[in-house]
């Protein structure tokens, strides 16, 4: 009888553990979109469309800044198109650097 009770208790405990683990699992999954492993290196969603848009914007924004600076310098120094040309190249490189920061490995993490 007591053997039986022990067994019952043990099974109860085991099922409790299992239920607890399941609940914890659920809780763990609840923690919204930043699950470490299967996302892109910087924790952003691995959603391909979002990533693609992000890469495009990164490329473009560096170029926009470079164009603005180059155009501004040329206006100021009356050297058109010297700085514009230089900064377009630099801006393209900076855009690629930005993209690398998005998709490449992140140091210090």
């Amino acid at each position, binding site marked *: 009888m007591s053997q039986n009770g022990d067994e019952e208790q043990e099974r109860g405990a085991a099922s409790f553990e299992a239920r607890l683990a399941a609940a914890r699992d659920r809780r763990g999954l609840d923690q*919204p979109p930043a699950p470490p492993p299967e996302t892109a290196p*910087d924790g952003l969603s691995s959603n391909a469309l979002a990533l693609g*848009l992000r890469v495009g914007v990164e490329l473009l*924004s*560096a170029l926009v800044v470079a164009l603005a600076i180059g155009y501004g310098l040329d206006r100021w120094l009356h050297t058109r198109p010297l700085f514009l040309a230089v900064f377009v190249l630099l*801006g393209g490189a*900076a855009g690629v650097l930005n993209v690398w920061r998005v998709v490449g490995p992140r140091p210090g993490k």
Partner: protein
Amino acid sequence: MAANGSGIDALGQFRLGHGLGEVGGAVNFTNSNEIMMLAGVLILGLIYFGMKPRAMVPGRLQAVAEMLYDFIHTMCIEQIGEEGKRYFPFVFTLFSFILFGNLLGLFPYFFTFTSHIAVTGALALLVIVLVTGVALRAHGLHFFTYFFPAGVPKLLAPLIIPIEILSYLSRPISLSIRLFANMTAGHVMFEVFASFMIMLVGALGAFGYVLAVGPLVINIALMGFELLVAFLQAYVFAILTCIYLHDAVHLH
């Protein structure tokens, strides 16, 4: 087709008007500002009334408030590190403001203030100025080594430094353009498909009503997609802020 106003005026929804009647007109208080205020009030209300019961087992509102808090809190600590707690209030404010702005914009007749680059640009500038300030305070002039990573040959300095500076300066642009472009594009699509319905009915009469079901279904699907985008863009803005803060605190 575009005759007598039946063309698609997809951008009209982004036009600023005056809010709050006569008084608003006198001080240039816009409909955009109205929704900003509403977002602020709703966030404060959510936190205040959500956390009022202080229940062990949260009710619905308390659960929402706690999830929002916990979500950003975890994000700050994961992305920035232990120091991230100091910047939690800032990131939380930013995230909830953008999230509520995006979500409120989905209601008919509500203005989407995140669809204006003036607004997103101001937010992005705020982030960049703060991040630069944090970096300068934490590292002093040492911060400028950020633009010339260790281990790079000195010969490349004239090339690397401008590129790094451009990359740094492009951050506010990419932050603001991303949010603005996503919100604007989504709302333009709503408008375009909604206009299709009206045009179909106008052109084909009773048969048009049958065909108009198509754009309607697309708009319903779009609404679901836009809900996702509203959340995702607020999330991206917040997490990028966290990543920049991480760079500022740790320099690489």
